[in-house]
């Protein structure tokens, strides 16, 4: 239920037209709301009429087309969100994997890096007791995942 004074619309109309009835005049004199309304109604009417109603707005077909394009973009973003999340998780997994691996086998990696020639690596790999099949498998797995993630990133961006 409206709380407005029941004479409010009459007051606005009278203030616009300047045609006041005695009853309305008497009411406005005793009603603070209508008195405030009457004091600004004519001015508000003028500002409403002087406003730029003729301003050129975009054609509705243009707005419709834009909305359809944006709807498509929004839908594509929604669909690709899980892929993006998976990609970020993959980056973290790869980084954590390498960090864990280096932490686990840092001494052996360091020894490899000292004698970094193909022949040296082959000899060391065969003779070093610290190199296990598990370590080589882990290394291979990490390298594969890194390459796959990198390829996916490059191809997705292209």
């Amino acid at each position, binding site marked *: 239920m409206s709380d407005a004074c029941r004479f409010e619309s009459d007051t606005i109309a009278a203030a616009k037209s300047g045609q006041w009835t005695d009853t309305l005049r008497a009411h406005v004199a005793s009603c603070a709301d209508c008195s405030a309304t009457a*004091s600004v109604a004519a001015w508000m009417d003028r500002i409403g009429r002087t406003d730029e*109603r003729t301003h050129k707005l975009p054609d509705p077909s243009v707005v419709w087309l834009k909305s359809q394009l944006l709807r498509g973009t*929004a839908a594509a973003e929604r669909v690709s969100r899980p892929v993006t999340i998976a990609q970020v998780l993959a980056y973290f997994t790869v980084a954590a994997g390498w960090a864990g691996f280096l932490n686990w086998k840092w001494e052996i990696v360091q020894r490899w890096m000292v004698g970094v020639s193909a022949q040296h690596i082959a000899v060391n790999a065969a003779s070093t007791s610290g190199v296990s099949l598990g370590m080589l498998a882990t290394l291979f797995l990490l390298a594969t995942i890194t390459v796959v993630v990198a390829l996916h990133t490059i191809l997705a961006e292209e």
Partner: protein
Amino acid sequence: MYADAMALPAFAAAPSEARTGGRAPQTPMNEAKFEALYRRNAASLWSYLHRLTGNASVADDLVQKTFFRFIRANPETESDDHTRRYLYRTATNLAFDHFRETKREREVTAAMVSNGETRGTGSDLRHDMTRVFTELKPRERALLWLAHVEGSSHEEIAEALGVKSKSVKVLLFRARRRLADVLRKHGLAPQELA
């Protein structure tokens, strides 16, 4: 900029949709239906947003965003009047979001007075009126515009501004008193009863 209007996450769009009734989407809107809706409402909506933001290009953007949101939400509106209220509600939320985002309401207000659009194309009368109107707060402008220019009822104003219907009477009274004071300050005496 428009992408923001469409790509809002569900949690950002939900409050305004919930406040407008939370109705389930109806059959998809087609272009012809949209065109009729746009032609009925766009001009008055632009005027409202122009007065509220004080900037024609911001009003242009916000009008389009309002319609983008309407198309996306595709609310089940019972009548033209209900659709209109939904649009004004969305437009008001977008305008207030704009003020919050830019945090330069005062600059906008000042720009409205001094920018070329009002000075170059308008008459002195329009310029003076604009200056007076921009001395009010955005909510006061919205209240007065809806009540006096759009002829909205207190319920419609409450819905558009997201306030309780009973508060509109008090807010409107204060806004009118403020405008009367500003008019007096500028030597534009408020209308006295004949």
